[in-house]
């Protein structure tokens, strides 16, 4: 089971790609759906690989990602 989990506020995502690039486990991907601001937003394509390192959250300029980790 995944050791971590990301929660993405899709309305806040602006498709900059930072989280995708800096995720060490390649968990995230830009999705195919558009939010109400017109951006294709990020989704966790491989949630099971998430280790909860929070690199994505730290990098996200729009505070779109919150991160959880196994206690």
């Amino acid at each position, binding site marked *: 089971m995944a050791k*971590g*989990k990301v929660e993405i*506020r899709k*309305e*806040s995502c*602006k*498709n*900059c*790609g*930072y989280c995708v*690039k*800096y995720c060490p486990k390649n968990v995230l991907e830009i999705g195919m759906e558009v939010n109400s*601001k017109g*951006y294709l937003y990020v989704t966790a394509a491989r949630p099971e690989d998430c280790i*909860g390192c*929070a*690199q994505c*959250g*730290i*990098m*996200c*300029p*729009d*505070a779109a*990602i*919150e*991160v*959880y*980790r*196994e*206690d």
Partner: protein
Amino acid sequence: MMKKVYARTTGIQDKVSGFCPGCMHGTVHKMIGEVAEELGIMDRLVRAEGVGCCGLGQNYVSYDTTISPHGRACAMATGMKRSNPDSIIYTYQGDGDLASIGLAETMHAANRNENITVIFINNGIYGMTGGQMAPTTLLGMKSTTTPEGRDPEKGQGYPMHMCEILNQLTGPYYLERTTCTDPAHVRKTKAAIKKAFQNQIDGKGFSMVEIVTSCPTNWGMTPLKAVDFINSDMLKEYPLGVFRDRSKEEKEAE
């Protein structure tokens, strides 16, 4: 049981920011909130906002905020801090604001060692007005007012190094330049911001954190390309580091 290890700071409201995709203004706003939480100063925090994309943060952050005329944030913060010494006052300014129109206000506040914190976003260009040359624009970089690239031979001047310049003044207590190009640097930036606020809490005086960031929109790059450009070009002109840390000097003197 999962524990939240990275939470959205209460320093920003439940809104979508007005910044462009990938703009690090957002990153810095977030960090200021996190630092305020960690230092327990959220309810004392006051922002004196410069004019520019900085200003897009006015309805995004969650604490007292006031808007200064373009370039005058440090003067305004001076008045605020002198009359409300218990508030924790920071200015948030772009390079046009802090280094062009506001140069005198910035330097004199530093020279007086005003007990304020200055967050300086150096993205090498005027953001909100649409990509004009800033004092920090790199040589050769195109802008709407240097359509053939900034050229000192044409009287367009040279990139200005604010940490280095302020470091010529006796006043300031702490001066550091950081960036946000990867998680490690974001963490370093946050540590610098934290130090800058801690100094104010301790009554030490003027602290400035200069953060080298991108303006993907006016640089005409994708956010990721813009990060590469920071690494390849901006940081060559603007080396990272601590330029002044009187707390270190004080310790050494002990």
